[in-house]
């Protein structure tokens, strides 16, 4: 197994997801009361900071399997954008507006970016250049294989 040191992407991503979920629970558990948005904004900001930190730390890793990371990450991104879109649709259908809508929409953005990052990272960290491509991944998604 690859024993080189990598940034704690999984741990940071889970902490980031926990923060936005906590913000969502805070907002949804006080409906329909108008409540201070500051706690939810603080949780979202902390979550976004963790996402940014994760991306920066990951970008600084040398000899990372970026091709494999993006190959897996982009399909995961597509799936999570669809899921986030469904949730956003439910918010809009329920006439959610103003500050809560902005906070929850930005939370969905963090969610839709961080989960695919985590999936791509988990796959790419175990990639070894001599192991060859995964022949079924792209064909399974109906795309031309671009793996080297």
């Amino acid at each position, binding site marked *: 197994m690859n024993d080189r040191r990598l940034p704690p992407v999984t741990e940071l991503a889970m902490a980031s997801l926990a923060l936005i979920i906590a913000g969502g629970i805070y907002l949804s*558990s006080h409906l329909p*009361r108008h409540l201070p948005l500051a706690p939810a904004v603080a949780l979202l900001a902390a979550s976004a900071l963790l996402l940014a930190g994760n991306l920066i730390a990951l970008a600084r890793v040398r000899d990372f399997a970026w091709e494999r990371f993006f190959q897996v990450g982009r399909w995961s991104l597509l799936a999570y954008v669809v899921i986030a879109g*469904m949730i956003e649709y439910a918010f809009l259908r329920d006439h959610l507006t103003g500050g809560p809508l902005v906070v929850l929409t930005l939370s969905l953005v963090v969610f839709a970016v961080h989960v695919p990052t985590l*999936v791509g990272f*988990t796959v790419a960290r175990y990639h070894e250049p001599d192991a060859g491509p995964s022949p079924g991944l792209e064909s*399974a998604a109906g795309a031309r294989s671009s793996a080297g």
Partner: protein
Amino acid sequence: MVDLTLPAPGASVEAGAPPGIERLDFEIVPRKGLVIVAAALVLLIVAIAVNKLWPLMFLHVAGGAAWTIIDLFLGLVLGPILGRLSIPARVEFTTKLMPKMLLIMPTVVTLTLAAGWQLGTKLGTVLTSYHNHGWVVASFIVVGVMSVLALGLLEPANIAVLIELKKPRPRPEVIEHLMKRFIYCAGILGAMQVATLVIMTKFATG
């Protein structure tokens, strides 16, 4: 404890798949299943758009039942069995089960939560005035914890195992590491589903 020991990677790696791991042909994402997923999501959009009680209740209850049963069965029954199977049997079972799980779980979770939220809005059960509001918040917390575990550990491990098994020379130690993560996570999620059952039966009985 589940014994997940696989044979150590041998020097024969150069000759192909390590002993005990036969490379099987399978689709990581079953394409035919995507049609069913798309149909389920269309049903969800329609149910939310029409905002009628029965379609929302159907999708929430059917999705929730599937989610709970799969988590309980996988975590508490299949997981321990999987850990005790022979390596070829485990690999074959994994390559047949996990691609389906990759489509089934996100779909049933999305159906359950989106329909459930809309249902709660329609019935007023998500409002603070609801007499069982504390239980509603408890359900949010249980779902939140399960989401972090499923999204952060379970699903990445699931995908990584499948991609490793697709390689010309799958590495046993990587599969062992990821499967351990998958099985322990599934066990925790199965246990947390018991909390979901307690909360949902409390709602149903008022």
